[in-house]
Structures are given as C-alpha cells and as structure tokens.
C-alpha cells in the first residue's frame, strides 16, 4: 500500500490531466478562425470605387477626397480647445462629448472626431494640425457627382447594415456598399476587391509584425469603370422639365433597348447623400411621404396607362383578324355598355382605325375590344388570348431589367377577375374599360416606353437595360442583346403607326409638332382617384404621352407620365416633344414652349386634396 501510494497518484493525476485536456482541446475546441482570432488584426486596403460614365463618355460619378479628423485619446495633449473648435467648425460641447465617446471606445485606438471635412476646411486645418498632438487627419474617398441629376438611377452608397453583414462575409462593419440604383446593381464591379493585410498583434493591441510573413495577404483589385446607357444631357434636361411636377419619364433607344433617360419627379441632387450632411438630408427626403422624392416613379409607379394602350388593342385586333384598318365603328359621343352610356371626347361620328387612334375614340376601341373576345366561344378564352398578346409587350410582369427595383404593372387575367368578383360572377361589361387603358390595367412608365419601343421596332424589343459596357470591353449580359418578339406580325404595325403619326398631324397631339421630325405618338388622359380621410375623391387627370421618332428610323421611344397634368398633350405631350427634339436635333427651336414647361409647376394641383376645402379638377386655365 505505502509503496503504491505515490505511483497510483501519479497515474490518476495523469489521467485527470488528459481528461481535462480532451475536454479543452477536443470537446471545447474552437479553432481561431483568421477573422475571429484576437491576435490577428486585419488591415484593409480599399481600392478606389469605379467611375461611372454616360453613353457618350461623359463622367457622371467619380470620387472625391474627404478628410476625417481622428483622435487617439491617450496621445492627446491639452490644447487650445477654443481655437481647435473654431477650425473644425464645431462647438465646444460637441467636442467634449466626442472626446468622451472616443475615450470610452478605446484610449489606444483612433476614433473619428469630426467626419468628412471638405477640401476647403481641410486646407485651413492642415497647417495648424501639428499643434494638436494626438490628432491627425485621415483621408477617405467619397462619391463625387458630376451631375445634379439621375439620383434615382445612380443610387447611393452607405454603410453596410446587419443584413448585409449576415448575407455576405465579404463586408466588415463600417464599410460602404451600394444600396440603391446602379451602385447596388453593379456593386461588385464598382467596388473592386479590397486588399487585406494580416497583422499579428499582442494583447495590448500593438502590432508586432505581419502574420505568417504576409503569405495570406492580398492586394486590392481596382474597381471597374462602367459606362451606362443614360444620355447625361437628356437626363439633365428632362429633370429640369420635371421641375415642380410629379411623375416619371423613360426614354429608350428602340434598336438596342438602352435606357436613354429615366426621370422621376420630384427628385433630388445625388450630392445631398454625400458628406457631413448626409443623414440630415436623407431623413428629410425619406420622411417626405407626400411627394416621395426617393420613390422612383419611372419604374415603381404603376398607374393605368390610359389611351396609349389603345394602340395595343388595335394591334391585337388586327392580329386576331377581327378587324381590318378600314373596319368602322360609330361613336355616339360615347358607347353603350348594356344600358349605361360611357362618354367619349372624340367628337363623335364614324371612325376607322386611323381616326380612331388619332382622335382617341373610346367607342371605336370598345367595339374593337368586344370583337376580340367575341371571336372566342367564351369570354374566358378571349381573355386568355388577349392577356398573352399583351404580355408579349413586356406588360403585366417584371421586365427583367438590370435595375435593382421595379414594379410588374398589371394585365388582368381571368383569374384576377375571378378573385375580385367571384368565379363566373363577372361578364364582358366588367372588362370593357381595359379597351381604353383604364380599369384594371396598369403599367410603369418604363413598361410604356418599352411598349412604344416595340411598336417603333415593328414587333420586337430588347430588354431595357442601363449598363452599356464595363471598362473598355463591350461585354454585357447577353440577355440584353437578344430581341424579344411580340405576338403581333410585322405587317399589322404600319396602320397603327400611321394613326400614331396622325396624332401629331391632325389629332390630339397636333399642338406639339416639331418641325422637321416625323413623330408617332399617342396621348393619354387618365382618370384617377385618391382616398383622403376615408373619402374617395377624383383628382385632375394624369397626363400621359408615349411617342417614338423619327418614324422611319426610330432613335428614341419614350413615355411621359405627369401626375394630375390633365389631358395628354397638355404636359406630357409637350415635355415629350421637347425631349425628342433635344435628343434628335440637339437643340430646342420652340423657346417659348420650353420656357413655359420649365417654369410651370403643378404644386397647386398637388396641394388641392390636402387643402381640406372643396376643389375643382381639370381646370382649363394655364
């Protein structure tokens, strides 16, 4: 017993130790991942974010330096606070609270004292900086905008949020990332790839040399330059025309599907979301829930398209062979649905396709529409055929653009009506409004522009897109260079285009002719309602216009949608014609029209429903 005592204790202790070590090293083993290891500091080397140019090579977005004033609290020596605050343009209380925050974060590590000084402030501060020990200036790169337009397209970059961090291990808290627009869509191209250096540090957080001699370190990869399809001049001009108006404008180059302009009103200067005032400005924009400047109406708003939709109904009817261009319908200053009469503003009389389009006759299209579904034994089948034709124009579904957001619009199917009214509880009279683009159909300005481009191309379109090329290589996603054919045969387009041409020559758009350019267009005047305090009110009609030009060789197809702009040619038509002239001719000949459009605002219209008083709509006075 006495001889074995020590031996057995040695063996027992040996097993105890091995047991404990198995628990620590096998059971509780948590390998130091390079990201979580407290002994390895990652220093990132951020490449410059890629520049963005327009279709003509004009710079739209670049970078600018900004200067953060940093402090290492431990090294900060007593200083002339008053002078320092004056240089930094902050007050003393703010300075003291920032210093306290920095110290609480870490006395040894640098904190931002004042973020993003401008170049001018920096210049003044730079030479005096040496008086302030423990403070230094760190250069950062911010976005610089060479235009005050296209905020909705370009988007903005901001700090990554929880969600980004969870979904993408690339990002580290505090980094910047594109959150809207092309900054979001082409984030990976624009940002490049950050380089990383691994630094071994000790428990006081001091660097003691590279980790594994820098074997795991990487070099930064430059962000790519990209060219987008926008025409900077056209975009800027469009935004000036949108001044004081709400709505959306989209212009597309029909032969490529490239988006030439994408305007949402009201909008904001993209530079507002950069620099020291960013968060203040962002709140202001974000909380404006009445005019919603951050809501991109050009791709998100989905009003009823109104009369431009009639052109598609004409095409479908021709394709289905239920009418020919000379088929006539009588307009009784309206048409009858059962025993109720619905109005028409065309002036009445007998209409064929040509005058039906250019006078925008409701009765003609109601008749046409009835013939389309009348061809089939049941309304259900007719609806199916009609829906299929409409969807081939990119309506009633997402277009598949390279924009990070969008709305699908709506082409009502029979399922839609079954849901709304109950199975078989609806009849053709319920859907007759679709013939004139009112009722249940809805489309975004982008979809309207695309539809117009398809007409301009006589039967096909390219998926609208915003990326023209990356760097100097032309390679973009091949899906944007594949034509998408509509279900309408080529020969049916000419009569409709003829009608659209006459809109300008004789019809609803004759006030907006441009000398020397043949335009095909279609006006739209869209009834709309709003619910305020539970009361349904009708507001002044939306003004809608679609057009393409020149007819022979279309260079531009566009849709203009102006909220409460009254009849189609009043605002939308004029703005469309100015944009076409600007794009095709490069200059404006009708200076007085231009002046009127630039100056006129619709603020008084938008104020009406909020005034709390009874108001009139559709007033003729300018």
């Amino acid at each position, binding site marked *: 017993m006495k*001889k074995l*005592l*020590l031996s057995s204790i040695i063996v027992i202790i040996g097993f105890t*130790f091995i047991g404990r*070590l198995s628990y620590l*090293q096998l059971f509780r083993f948590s390998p130091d991942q390079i990201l979580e290891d407290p*002994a390895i500091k990652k220093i990132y080397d951020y490449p410059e974010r890629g520049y963005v140019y327009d279709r003509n090579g004009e710079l739209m977005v670049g970078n600018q330096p900004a200067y953060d004033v940093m402090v290492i609290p431990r090294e900060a020596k007593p200083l002339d606070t008053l002078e320092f605050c004056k240089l930094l343009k902050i007050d003393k209380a703010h300075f003291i609270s920032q210093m306290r925050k920095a110290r609480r974060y870490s006395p040894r590590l640098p904190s931002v004292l004042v973020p993003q000084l401008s170049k001018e402030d920096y210049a003044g501060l730079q030479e005096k900086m040496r008086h302030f020990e423990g403070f230094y200036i760190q250069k950062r790169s911010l976005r610089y905008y060479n235009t005050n337009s296209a905020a909705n397209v370009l988007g903005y970059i901001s700090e990554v949020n929880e969600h980004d961090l969870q979904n993408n291990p690339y990002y580290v808290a505090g980094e910047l990332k594109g959150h809207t627009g092309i900054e979001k869509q082409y984030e990976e191209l624009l940002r490049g790839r950050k380089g990383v250096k691994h630094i071994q540090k000790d428990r006081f957080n001091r660097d003691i040399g590279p980790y594994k001699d820098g074997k795991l370190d990487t070099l930064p990869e430059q962000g790519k330059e990209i060219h987008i399809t926008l025409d900077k001049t056209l975009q800027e001009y469009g935004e000036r025309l949108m001044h004081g108006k709400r709505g959306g404008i989209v212009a597309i180059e029909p032969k490529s599907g490239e988006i030439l302009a994408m305007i949402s009103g009201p909008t904001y200067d993209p530079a507002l979301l950069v620099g020291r005032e960013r968060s203040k400005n962002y709140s202001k924009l974000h909380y404006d829930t009445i005019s919603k400047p951050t809501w991109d109406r050009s791709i998100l708003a989905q009003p009823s398209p109104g009369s431009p939709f009639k052109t598609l109904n004409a095409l479908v009817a021709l394709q289905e062979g239920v009418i020919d261009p000379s088929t006539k319908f009588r307009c009784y200053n309206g048409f009858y649905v059962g025993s109720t009469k619905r109005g028409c503003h065309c002036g009445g009389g007998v209409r064929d396709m040509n005058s039906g389009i250019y006078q925008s006759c409701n009765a003609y299209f109601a008749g046409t529409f009835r013939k389309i579904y009348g061809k089939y034994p049941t309304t259900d089948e007719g609806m199916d055929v009609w829906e299929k034709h409409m969807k081939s124009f990119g309506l009633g579904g997402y277009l598949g653009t390279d924009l990070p957001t969008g709305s699908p619009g709506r082409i009502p199917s029979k399922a839609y009506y079954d849901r709304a009214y109950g199975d078989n509880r609806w009849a053709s009279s319920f859907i007759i409004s679709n013939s004139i683009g009112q009722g249940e159909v809805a489309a975004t300005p982008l979809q309207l522009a695309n539809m117009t481009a398809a007409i301009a191309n006589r039967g096909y379109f390219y998926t609208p897109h915003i990326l023209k090329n990356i760097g100097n290589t032309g390679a973009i996603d091949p899906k944007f260079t594949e034509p998408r054919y509509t279900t309408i045969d080529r020969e049916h387009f000419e009569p409709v285009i003829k009608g659209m041409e006459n809109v300008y020559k004789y019809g609803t758009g004759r006030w907006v002719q441009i000398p020397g350019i043949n335009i095909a267009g279609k006006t739209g005047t869209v009834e709309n309602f709003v619910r305020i305090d539970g009361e349904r009110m009708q507001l002044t009609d939306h003004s809608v216009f679609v057009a393409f030009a020149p007819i022979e060789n279309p260079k531009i197809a566009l849709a203009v949608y102006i909220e409460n702009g009254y009849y189609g040619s009043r605002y939308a038509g004029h703005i469309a014609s100015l944009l076409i002239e600007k794009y095709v001719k490069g200059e404006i000949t009708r200076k007085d029209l231009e002046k009127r459009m630039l100056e006129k605002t619709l603020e008084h219209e938008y104020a009406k429903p909020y005034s709390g008083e009874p108001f009139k709509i559709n007033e003729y006075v300018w």
Partner: protein
Amino acid sequence: MSGRGLFGRIDWLTIFLYAFLVFIGWLNIYSTTLSNPDVSILDFSTLYGKQLFFIGLAFVGIILVLSIESSFFERFASIFYIAAIVLLIGLFLFGKTVAGATSWYDLGFFNFQPSELAKVATALALAKYLSDIQTDIKNRKHQSYALLIILLPAILILPQPDPGSSLIYFSLFFVLFREGFPLYYLGVLVVIVVLFATTLMFGTVWIGIGLGVLIVLIFTFKRKSVKIPILPLIVAIVTSMLFSLSVGFVYDNVFEQRHRNRFALWLRLEKDEKKLEEIRKTIGYNTYQSEKAIESGGFFGKGFLEGTRTKGDFVPEQHSDYIFSSVGEEWGFLGTVAVILIFSVFFLRLIFIAERQKNDFSRMYGYGVISILFIHYFVNIGMVIGLLPTIGIPLPFFSYGGSSLIFFTMLLFIFLKLDSNRLKDGI
C-alpha cells in the same frame, strides 16, 4: 563493485527523458519569447538565449554532481540544510524584491533564489534524519522532528511571500508515508480538504445531511461481525460538523477578498454567470487566456512558431509558469498528452529506481526528489489547464528560469549518482 564505470551504471533512460523534457521546454521558450527571428539563438540578450546558457550551466552542474563521491551528500546533508535555512533567514535582511516577493539574492549576472537550494537541502536532510538508525518513524517525537525539518523552510518562505514554494515542502510527506508514517494522517488531511471545499459549495446543512446518510449507509451495509466504535464515530461526526461550521467564519473573516475570488472561481461558487465571467476575466485572467490558447490548439495544434496567441503574448508569464499553454496551442492535444505521458513515465521510472535502492538514505532521498518534482508538475499543469487555483510555481525542466532549472537538475542527478552507487555501498 562491478567492473563498469559511472557511464555503465547510471540510469540512461532517466537521463534521456530529462534531456528530452529540457529540449522541448526550450523549444517552447524559444517560441514564446521569439520576437525577431534574425537574432542568433545564442544571443544572451534574449530569454531563449539566456535559457540556453542556463542549460549549459546545468550541464556543468551535472558534471560536478557526478564527480562528487556519493557519501558526500549523506555526510554533509545537515550542513546543507543549516546553510539553506541561514540563507532563507538572510533574505529578510539582504533579499532582493522581484515582483513583490523578497525571494532573491542579487548575484550580479543573475538572481539566486535560495528556496530552490532549500528544496534539495531539505530532501537530503529529511532522508538523512529518517535513515538514521536511531530514528523510529512510529515514535511521536521522531515524527515531530521529521515534520519540523519539512515545515521550517516552508514557514520561512511563506512571508516572502511565496506561498507556492511553501506548498512544495508539504509534498515531502510522501517520503514519510513511504517510510511508514501512519496513513490516517493523509486520510484526515483529505477529509479536511473535502469538508472545506464541500462546505463552501453546498453549506453546512447539506454536509450534516450527507454525514447522516453516510452513517445510515455504514450501519445498513456493515457485516454483522464488524463492531463500529460508537464513541470515536460520534467524536468524528461532531468534529466534522464543528469544522464545517467554522469554515464559513474563516472564509469570510480570515481570507482576503483576492483569496475568496480565487475560490469563487475555482469551485464555481459564484452562481451569477455574469459575475463569474467577470471574475474569470480579471482575477482569472491568466488562466482564462491560457485555457483559450490551449483550446485553440485543437488536436494537431497550430504548429511550431505558429501559435497566434503565443506570438501575441496573450498569456501572461507564458515563458515561465504558463509554458504548458504554448505546448497546448502549438502542438495541440498530441503534444500535451505526450508531455503528460513523458512526465508520468519519468516519475514512475524514478519510483522504480528508488525502490531498487538497498541503501535507505538513497531510497528516501529518491522519494524526496520525486515528491518535489511531482508536486511542481501537478500544481503547475493543474493551474494552467484550469483545474487548480492560481499558484505560481514553475514546471520542472520546462519553465524559463536559471535557479529552478539548475537546482531541479542537481536534485535529480544527486539521486542518479546515488543510484549508480547502489551496488557498491549497500549496507
């Protein structure tokens, strides 16, 4: 005497294990203290360079010890002991204070720690006293003399303060037990420790209930023929209960907060998880960091010189007391188990050698050597892997430090020298 010389008679297995431990110990010191790989390993401005120098000194010590006549150690054991005691007392007058403990003499090029010498001297003196033909281990008086030899240096070292080194001397009880010191002393000691810890963990009431249950069990399962002495049992129970009752008082009034914190951490007395975590990261900071380093090593370890926490100096005192954590991080489970196994084999080999001595003095001294080395190993690794509270003593042959390496070496080689002579002068 056989015809073979010293080289033929010395135990090469022990020497091999010793050399191996010193070698991997140095590798780990190199890893923990390396700051600039371009500096030569012989640069004495670095700690690993210095340690290499100490290893050289230890080698000189080995030669010295092996060339001395065996009988010298037995003959002069008392003198060594008295000299060591004098040196320990001298510390109160001439001692140099390092890190709050007055444990060193300043010898210019390095600091000399007499408590290391005292370990060797006490082991020798104890063996000498017990092996004396006059001494009877069953005699109470002789028992108390033996205890005095052990406890005198421990008491002198305690106020330095160096409770860790004091604790070491208690390991010499193993020598006493080996030589026939009644084992129930050990039983009483174990009962005291268990009662102390369990009272702190569960409270006196549960101890009482536990003892009650124990008595019921004893009476239920005893054989009919066995008579339980009733009176001593009652005395034992009452004493235990009184002791248990006094624990709370001692804990609250005699111990200081830092001691209480260590117990709170060790026995997980703090029930509030948040507070426990806080204690773990403040009072238990060293252990927390060393456990983390060991954990992160996993099965295979991160590789030699690749331990990020070792390089980052996250574990304080890693080159000295916490050297084992570097083994854990860089060599993984394989490395730590290998070290445990080598130490265990080393100790068992020494016991084997001690038991084959014909000379009582050699055997007793051998047990002294094993006890001292083992208690260092046990307390040190127990602390580093978080099983025992923080007590700062080095890991033999591993930890950085000249005094400890040289005296551990001499401690061991005196025994090997004695062993090499076992056939010559067995009485």
